[in-house]
């Protein structure tokens, strides 16, 4: 573990990514305490450009609400939606994919046909239907996004496992009588991790944006502000007030960039061929 952190901290991308993520998370956690004003309150004249008033540094939106406050409060929901739904998608997708790929045959068949159930409906549509059924709330949104995001994970993992399970070191583990779970967890998955990390770090962005599409349709959690919501809400006034979409958009971009950098760092740190490289 110590070694892992050491190599993680040695990769510049990993460090930058970690810093970004930590920043974002601390904003999400502590920001609302520092800015107790509700982001929904109309505080100034609408469409106030950024950097004109120090009380609303990033300007106001179409209703005169503080964009900066929105950014601070939005971090919480966006990161929550992005990270949690990705995490859930991984928790569901990785084992299913791994089992399908490892056991093959009937198990594969059953699991993959099951996956296809979720895969076949266009994910956006499925998310809408699910949110509509479950009633919009932050929980149902996270659930729905996770439910539509796991099939690609499962298929990806399965593909990798299909290829890895024939490797000789897996056979060597079989020979020593290790359990299937152990083999999957220790012998196969670590070697399949790199694409999963990439996919996961991208999925966070998808989730954040899916949430924004949902709120665009009126299916977001209307009582919570999020970056995605802000981007969507500013969409119609892009040409009058670029700042309403651009600031939250950049926040999303930077978070996603941070996560991807962490992914890179993680991949490097987990790759034994790199970890000892003297830089």
């Amino acid at each position: 573990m110590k070694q892992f952190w050491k190599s993680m901290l040695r990769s510049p991308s990993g460090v930058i990514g970690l810093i970004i993520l930590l920043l974002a998370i601390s904003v999400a956690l502590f920001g609302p305490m520092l800015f107790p004003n509700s982001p929904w309150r109309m505080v100034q004249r609408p469409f106030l450009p950024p950097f004109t008033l120090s009380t609303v540094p990033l300007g106001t939106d179409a209703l005169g609400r503080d964009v900066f406050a929105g950014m601070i409060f939005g971090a919480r929901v966006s990161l929550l939606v992005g990270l949690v739904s990705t995490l859930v998608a991984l928790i569901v997708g990785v084992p299913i994919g791994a089992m399908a790929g490892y056991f093959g045959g009937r198990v594969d068949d059953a699991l993959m046909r099951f996956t296809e159930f979720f895969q076949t409906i266009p994910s956006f549509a499925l998310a809408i239907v699910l949110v509509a059924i479950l009633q919009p709330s932050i929980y149902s949104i996270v659930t729905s996004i996770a439910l539509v995001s796991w099939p690609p994970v499962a298929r990806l993992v399965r593909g990798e496992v299909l290829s890895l399970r024939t490797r000789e070191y897996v056979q060597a583990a079989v020979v020593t009588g290790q359990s299937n779970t152990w083999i999957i967890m220790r012998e196969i998955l670590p070697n399949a991790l790199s694409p999963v990390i990439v996919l996961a770090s991208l999925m966070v962005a998808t989730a954040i944006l899916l949430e924004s599409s949902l709120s665009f349709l009126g299916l977001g959690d209307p009582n919570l502000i999020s970056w995605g919501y802000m981007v969507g809400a500013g969409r119609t006034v892009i040409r009058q007030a670029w700042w309403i979409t651009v600031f939250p958009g950049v926040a999303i971009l930077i978070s996603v960039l941070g996560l991807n950098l962490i992914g890179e760092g993680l991949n490097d740190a987990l790759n034994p061929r790199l970890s000892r490289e003297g830089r």
Partner: protein
Amino acid sequence: QEPKTGGVINAVIQPEPPGLMLAMVQNGPTQMVSGNIFEGLLRYSPKLEPQPELAESWSVSEDAKTYTFKLRKGVTWHDGKPFTAADVLFSIEMLKQTHARARTNLAQVDKVEAPDDYTVVFTLKQPFGPFLGIFEVGSMPMVPKHLYEGTDWKTNPYNNAPIGTGPFMFKEWQKGSFIRLVKNPNYYEKGKPYLDEIYWQIIPDAAARSVAYETGKVDVLPGGSVENFDVPRLTKLKDTCVTGAGWEFFSPLAWLWLNNRQGPLADKRVRQAVMYAIDRDFAKDVIWNGLGKVATGPSASTIKYYTDDVKKYPYDPAKAKALLKEAGYKGEKIRLLPLAYGETWQRWGEAVKQNLMDVGINIETIATDVAGGNQKIGDWDYDIAFTYLYQYGDPALGVGRNYISSNIAKGQVFNNVEGYSNPEIDKLFADGAVATPDSKRKEIYEKAQKILVEDVPVAWMLELQFPTIMRCKVKNLITTGIGVNDGFKDAWLDK
């Protein structure tokens, strides 16, 4: 200026109509396109005075129970068959089954007869004040009898290629792209229409619609096609003309359903507090970009018998708080249902929520899409809900329906959804519809407005205005109270 003949106009249609057979599909875009293919017996001036269309002239009997229409001669359907009184009779029969509003409108009609090919006589059960207001093309389009009689209307092939008597003929419809209408060369008004073709472009995204206008790809943006926030910018473009006219007949009025049945809102004082709490001028100025008008009561100011001599509800949070206190409101949760019709409505929902929270009303916004919202409203499963409805020119047609108790029924999304029940109002609207003469009606409706405004069964917000944006070279587009819906008949292009 002398009209010039020829030219093609590109207009925007949004959303894509589900069908063009006006007798069977009545949603907004259908009316907008098909209003130029089909015709009604009458049209209405911006002041909502009846004007001849397929009916050349009309007369009303002394007892106000018999209406005689003289039809125009020499009118033919697009397929060349003549239009006669038989078509009118058939249309009325058909519409009674397929057109909900027509059915209600015609409820007072005892019988319809055609003494000859060019005369139609309506006999009413009792005098019906607004009767002359129900003949506009959207409310009562004429259907070709020879193509529909004895067929299964639902699957009639002409539904997809409608045949009317109007100035334009249906030519082609590429789903998802455009609808193309061409000039009717045999139109009965000589010289009309002036235009050769109309393309209705289907562009689902509002921002893309304004770009299409900016880049010169379309010439006409009918009301509601672009986001309000874009209107000022587009208006400033060169060679651009804007008009708010053409919505007089519909007079869309926005309000909040307040569920009168249960919870704090059952208390009149709480409902009044809601009225005081909401900054409607803000909504008008910021959300609707200064377009429209703050509503004073159940009637839009363009509707007959409108009066503003009613109780006023200016933005007054203090008063709202006082009323709430008086009513003993203790912070019970109130569910607010915004309208999922796009950004403007969402913003409005947010602003109203903030207004109400500011006076201490504990609002929880419920998110749904349109269908889900309709379901909730229909099931009376809400506390406050946004809506906007057309008024159709006469309080008997578009206003009363929302307040009379006989219209309370589960499963519908408008009429009396709020559950307001007041025998006095029921009686006033019942009388108003059949009263004669006009002055009597005026008296009744003014009284009704006063009572309603005091009771606040719903919270009236704004008289909406949907400006039509077009190039200045498009002339005479809006000449009637129903606007673009039948506007291309007179329009011409100044090249």
